[in-house]
């Protein structure tokens, strides 16, 4: 009994860690977005208007979709796949952002709408997926309705803390040490690895459970 309780705690800790990473990644990418757009759309105030609007909108949609997804067949494996998916959708920022921005620059004269469209194409999908993780994490952590508020509060705390750190570390240090592409690729790899860890964890756990169940049966 004791051991299974311990295992659950570890799993919860792991989920909190994942939520922290998703918060970190969102703000890290949002901050870099300003840098990525500047060569084509400048650094006027409306560039940040475009970026923040797109991030807020996609997070809103992500929360909605993540909540919906958590209503059926909820599993750590699926949770892990969301991470991997988020990591993969970040890659076009590195591979095609110049091409995308060049074309938008040619098509749209007004840098307000140009930057809005560019940030939509580049950041909308990955941010939606990163946003889906929050409600999904709540679903995984909540065991009874009594504690749901507390769990949600703790999760917001952890993921927002991640966002704060993602903002300050990226803007103070990462841009001083690395290329933008290097940072984005690293975030993408870390997200994929964390997702993979979650999937492996789920597999191993299932096997252990199966073994312990069959052990119990043989004992009986």
């Amino acid at each position, binding site marked *: 009994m004791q051991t299974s309780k311990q295992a659950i705690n570890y799993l919860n800790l792991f989920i909190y860690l994942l939520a922290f990473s998703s918060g970190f990644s969102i703000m890290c990418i949002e901050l870099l977005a300003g*840098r990525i757009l500047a*060569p084509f759309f*400048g650094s006027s105030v409306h560039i940040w208007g475009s970026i923040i609007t797109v991030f807020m909108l996609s997070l809103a949609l992500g929360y909605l979709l993540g909540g919906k997804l958590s209503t059926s067949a909820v599993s750590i494996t699926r949770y892990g796949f969301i991470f991997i998916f988020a990591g993969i959708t970040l890659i076009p920022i590195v591979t095609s952002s110049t091409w995308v921005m060049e074309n938008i620059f040619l098509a749209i004269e007004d*840098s307000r709408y140009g930057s809005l469209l560019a940030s939509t194409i580049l950041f909308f999908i990955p941010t939606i997926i990163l946003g889906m993780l929050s409600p999904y994490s709540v679903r995984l952590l909540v065991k009874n309705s009594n504690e749901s508020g507390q769990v949600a509060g703790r999760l917001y705390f952890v993921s927002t803390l991640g966002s704060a750190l993602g903002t300050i570390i990226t803007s103070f240090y990462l841009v*001083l040490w690395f290329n933008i592409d290097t940072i984005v690729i690293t975030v993408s790899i870390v997200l994929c690895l964390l997702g993979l860890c979650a999937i492996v964890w789920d597999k191993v756990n299932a096997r252990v459970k199966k073994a312990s169940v069959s052990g119990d049966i043989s004992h009986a």
Partner: protein
Amino acid sequence: MPKLLCNRRVTALLAISVLLTNTVLAKVIHSERSLYRNILVEDKGDTRCLKFNVKSNNTRQSCLFKSKPQQLVFNYTKQLLAGLLINPKPERILIIGLGGGTMSNTLHQLLPDSQIDNVEIDQSVIKVARQYFGFIENENIKTFSQDGRVFIKRALLRKQAYDWIILDAFDGDYIPEHLMTKEFLIEVKDLLTEQGILTANTFSSSELYNYESATYKAVFGDFYQVVNKDNSNRIILASKSASLPKLDKQTSSLAQHKKLSHLAEFFQVIGVDSKLLYKNMTSTDQHQDWPAASPVLTDQFSPANLLKIDSD
């Protein structure tokens, strides 16, 4: 600013300022918070300055003498005119970063037929330049409220070209980092005519110096630097042509110069010492004062503001 000259109150103020000489108190005559910064117009005796911040001293962006508005106050604005020694009759001029519009006014005075395009990101700065600094606009002088990099990209698409591009977009506190990268400088170079030159008002101290110098060298090859010891500014003077145009330092008097003789009188009027200008110009093919291995700033890597903090 002939209007100001005739203004009686100003003349009265002037008289007082002469009496009190150095003890005149600075008076803020206009202040506003724009989308980008605080803008202050400050009168101190005969000097009127545009400031982007109150506390630090190195934020005087643009100044003029109210009694002699045609004279240039700042060393760096004088240093920027070194561009004329290389390219004496630019027909199309682009100025990135308006300030009080003093540079545009000065050049218009010398070259009334030349076309000057001013680009300034901050609409409020344009307004203040018009209201308080007698910024002249006419069919030859246009102002665009736009990010400098975006303007240059659009100008390239329109197949425009300039004989002289003046980059003066850095104030003492904040550097637009996308205006420091190799990619940006390549765009600037592409926008120059064959004989075209770039003069950039930048920094002479901090770790950024090495990075910035390496970046300019990577794009333009060797360039001239106009330095001034009592000033933290330096001017980079780069040209599009593969070989750096030669400076005839022997003929230090402009009047003796065939091509430059028309500048002599003008420089005197605006208070520029051409001998000093020549003296302060050095070429990087003779004297390169940064480590050869300094990294180049790119759109991928341009932590200009952080580099500046590091060594402040």
